[in-house]
């Protein structure tokens, strides 16, 4: 399945020969650093960034005491992880606000990075926070770009300012005046995608910047970008002094090493991530999760957090106890389903697991409609039946199926699945007693 694969396995191999000597050995560290270097390059972290990074990790690892409870491999991964998190900076998803409104946000980036889509998401986010944003169509080059922004704006009910395909600097200036007179507090300027080496177009951005003095200049970068991310980010930063970065298309299966590269060479914070095609698919940037992702450790932290949000402590503890005592009932089963749904559905949960993003789960395996059916069935049971599913025999099954609008086969299937889950939980009891998600 590839869970904890890649770097974890390789490091385990490097350190497999040493037992507990209490210290990390120089030769093995050198081997480990080679594996780390390759792993980071494979994750698309820039070569120069990797070199400096590995030097730093190596220095810290040399002679470090090994904590008793972990293996040397885990110890090194922890050092790598810590350094990655540190390098990527703190969580910072706050947009600066101008002392005198409107706050101007200028988007910029290469073609196809996802600027227009992100403008819509930012607009929706600001609106949700009680602001009054205005989107501005300054991409006068790409065919139908203005139309696209208009549709995006309409979908999130945010006004779009456009003046056709005349000079983008003039459009931006007029938009800000329009915002001042009409009481918009935030202006989001969508600019055309451009190559960082196109001097004329980069100059155009400098002109817009000079004219409307944006509080935020956000570079939008595709998370799948390879080694070139550094060149792109450096050039944009040198010419515009960007204030932050937005990483898009993180719902793909990319490791996203570009995030580390960009942060390292620009020193600017990554403020948001785009995680889907819907207007609400925008998230703050979490350095620790990104570190896990780059190292191929999966988004375990996110998963745990989402699980916690979906199920409060108390319910969780109660259920753990029930699992331990093997008194897990159909009611608990239902609670599990509901929390899964709150976590964004099974498919989303699966994608956060290490190694799973790469695998295509067929919809059959994770049919959410079936869960709806199960819910209906359980709701049609009496309290006694839910607590003692073993009493549900043929006549009860018939009643329950007609009561819930399902078939007897559906009821059978539910009972079977419940039994399997309960067995699984009994087995898990010996591990940590955590729920199976």
């Amino acid at each position: 399945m590839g869970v904890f694969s890649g770097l974890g396995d390789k490091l385990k191999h490097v350190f497999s020969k040493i037992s507990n000597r209490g210290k990390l050995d120089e030769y093995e560290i050198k081997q480990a650093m080679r594996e780390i270097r390759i792993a980071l390059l494979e994750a698309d972290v820039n070569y120069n960034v990797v070199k400096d990074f590995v030097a730093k990790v190596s220095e810290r690892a040399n002679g470090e005491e090994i904590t008793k409870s972990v293996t040397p491999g885990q110890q090194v991964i922890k050092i790598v992880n810590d350094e990655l998190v540190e390098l990527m900076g703190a969580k910072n998803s706050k947009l600066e606000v101008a002392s005198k409104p409107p706050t101007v946000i200028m988007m910029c980036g290469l073609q196809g990075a996802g600027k227009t889509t992100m403008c819509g998401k930012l607009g929706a986010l600001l609106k949700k926070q009680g602001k009054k944003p205005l989107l501005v169509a300054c991409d006068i080059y790409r065919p139908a770009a203005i139309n696209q922004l208009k549709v995006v704006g309409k979908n999130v009910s945010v006004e779009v300012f456009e003046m056709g395909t005349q000079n983008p600097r003039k459009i931006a200036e007029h938009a800000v005046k329009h915002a001042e007179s009409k009481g918009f507090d935030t202006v989001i300027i969508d600019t055309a995608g451009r190559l960082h080496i196109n001097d004329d177009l980069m100059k155009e951005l400098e002109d817009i910047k000079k004219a409307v003095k944006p509080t935020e200049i956000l570079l939008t970068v595709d998370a799948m970008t390879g080694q070139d991310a550094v060149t792109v980010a450096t050039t944009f930063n040198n010419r515009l002094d960007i204030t932050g970065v937005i990483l898009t298309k993180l719902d793909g299966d990319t490791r996203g090493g570009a995030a580390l590269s960009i942060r390292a060479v620009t020193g600017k914070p990554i403020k948001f991530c785009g995680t889907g095609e819907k207007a609400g698919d925008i998230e703050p940037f979490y350095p620790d999760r990104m570190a896990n992702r780059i190292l191929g450790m999966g988004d375990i932290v996110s998963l745990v957090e989402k699980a916690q949000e979906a199920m409060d402590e108390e319910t969780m503890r109660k259920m753990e106890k029930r699992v331990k005592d093997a008194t897990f009932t159909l009611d608990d089963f239902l609670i599990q389903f509901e929390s899964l749904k709150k976590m964004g559905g099974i498919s989303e949960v699966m994608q956060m697991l290490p190694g799973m993003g790469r695998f295509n789960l067929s919809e059959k395996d994770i049919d959410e409609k079936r869960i709806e059916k199960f819910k209906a069935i359980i709701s049609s049971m009496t309290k006694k039946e839910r607590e003692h599913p073993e009493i549900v025999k043929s006549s009860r099954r018939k009643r329950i199926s007609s009561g819930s609008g399902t078939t007897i086969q559906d009821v059978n299937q539910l009972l079977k699945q419940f039994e399997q889950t309960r067995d699984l939980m009994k087995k898990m009891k010996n591990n940590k007693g955590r729920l199976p998600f």
Partner: protein
Amino acid sequence: MGIFAKIKNALKKTKDAIAYRLNKLFTGGVLNDEFYDELETILLSADIGSETTESILNELKKVIDKKHITDPGRVRDELKAIMRGILDFELPEEEYPLVILVAGVNGVGKTTSIGKLARNYKKAGKSVTIVAADTFRAAAADQLTVWADRAGVRIVRQNEGADAAAVVYDALQSAKSKGTQVTIIDTAGRLHNKVNLMEELKKIDRVIDREFPEAMRLNYIVLDATTGQNALSQVDLFNEAIDIDGIILTKLDGTAKGGVVLAIAGEEEVPVVYIGVGEGIDDLEPFDINDFVNEIVDGD
């Protein structure tokens, strides 16, 4: 961030950073472990990926051994020969009627590439229809219509939100009745790990097979040259869904050189067919192996 100041300096000549470092390596030094280590790092930082880099290095060592090469200067040509070998595929002769299905992740330049492709066929004297089957992204069909006008070809489109496979179905009926020689289908950008969207693409693929069995089929994936190792995953999963015949590698007019296609050719055995080198309608060129390899290794 002081420690990264030197990177910024190095980047001044980035356009040829890879070639610059290779050049330094090939002029001086001896063929020892350090030489190969540095070569490995350079190849990896050209987005070539670890698996293909390793096989290039193994092959190179074999050749160097066999030919008793001791001068690093002679390694350059051997390296280029190996790269050319990896990229060399025989492309099928095109026949008409031809249906080209164009797919890829979001933002790689599918619509633009289709405009250019349509223009190429039109210039070659073919009758061309392009089909707006991206019914998802806002204003995608409008964008494609502008390209159809520029290329001077017919476009078939329906409303936003229409079923993509149904648009393709209608377009094929009209292509058949009009005797269109080349039909090019634009699809919505989709991330390759989204099961539902990949199913939709499979459906479009099946509709073409069923409705137009007499046509020659070509399925192209569009890749952004800026993309890193994820391109492998993209080709892998798109190939699994609809059998990819070739790659259109876009945005080669930037500073990225698209080294990842070496990894793709090596691991997935999918050839590059066209490259995109600008935003103009004539900026689509047939892939030339020599030029591509020279660009990576020599920087010109």
